[in-house]
């Protein structure tokens, strides 16, 4: 199971969504799709047309910058960060 860490801006949008959740997935996109089945609409908050990660959403797998098709291992840590914008 991958250890997924989500941005604090996401959790208020989906009742019951924790900041930290475990999923079974082979890629970053598969991990997000897994979350989508439990919290419908979540994918659209992280993934835009293409599909591609939204421009100010960054993903890291085990500390390395990742894209949607980056592999996720069984014990990987996947950090999803809301970056850069604000003010």
């Amino acid at each position: 199971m991958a250890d997924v860490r989500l941005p604090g801006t996401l959790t208020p949008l989906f009742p019951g969504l924790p900041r930290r959740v475990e999923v079974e997935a082979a890629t970053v996109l598969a991990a997000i799709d897994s979350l989508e089945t439990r919290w419908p609409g979540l994918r659209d908050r992280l993934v835009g047309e293409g599909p591609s990660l939204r421009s100010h959403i960054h993903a890291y797998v085990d500390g390395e910058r990742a894209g949607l098709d980056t592999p996720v291992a069984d014990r990987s840590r996947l950090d999803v960060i809301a970056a850069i914008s604000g003010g």
Partner: protein
Amino acid sequence: MPKTMLTVATRKGAFILESDDRRDWKVRGPYCEGWPVYHAIYDPTTGEIYAAAASEWHGSAVWRSADLGETWEMSSEGLTYGDEDGRKISKVSTLARAGDRLLVGVEAPGIFESRDNGKTWSLLSTLSGQHGSESWDDPANQPPGHLGISGFVTDHGDSDSFFAIVQGIGAFETEDGGSSWTPRNKGLRRDWPADYEDVGFCVHKLVRSSDPQRMYQQNHVGMHRSDDAGQSWTEITEGLPGDFGFAAAVHPHDTETFYVIPVDGGHGRTMHEGKATVWRTRDAGSSWQPMRSGLPQENAHLGVLRQAMTIDTHDTPGVYFGTSTGQLFASADEGETWTELAGYLPGISSVDVAVLD
């Protein structure tokens, strides 16, 4: 007196203001988790509030509240051009009710509709095939913040007939629910070359009076009036301090009375001479009067965006406008005198008013 409710969209969420007498106002908010909200409306058909919002992190969505803002849900299901199209939705700009359709205008230019009051959406039209659409349909011509559907004029009871504004292109009318469109820009001024005779105009705001034949618009170059339901336009700028502005509102009971807020057309886009002023005509644009009583008259370099002025439907209508720096002003006497309802809101994108029985 029935309750008057303002729905205010800001760069940091939506706010609600309520009053039983239009003197004392209670402010609630921010709502929508502080997302940038570009247009928020109360929909008398459903009694719901809808807010078009676009987070820099989490994309575009329409928020809705069935209890006058106490609780909110959001959805963007179907609000996409798809993975293969090439166009992206960078912003949801504007909302309107048209019969059983809830419409949202987006950037890149397109109109999506919801038939279930904002829960799911589908693409209604990109006005494809209209003169100029070869440019606005090209994903390469999609700089953020430009070229979207920036406004609608609808009839709440009519699903099929409405106007849409394509930013920098002009106004279009459909009478068949978006299947076909007709440009409605005849007689408008433009001070630049254009590839086509019927498009290439910069319509900022379009409003329709209680007589559907009588319409007004604030254009990039001039205020205009139509006496034939938008089929032709006559410029009525003379007497105003400038020809540029965004906001406009028409009196609900008097088709001759119309309000605008001219602003400097350069980079500043603030009110002329630092004096906050709403200009009113009582004779359909033949003459204009500045309405300043109660508004700041020194160093008031205020901008007002296209959806940020509105007027209520009381017998003596109240006029309201919000500024891009967060001040909200109101007049309960048709613009004669003004008070500041809020001075420190986030930058205001839109102001909508409803009279609730």
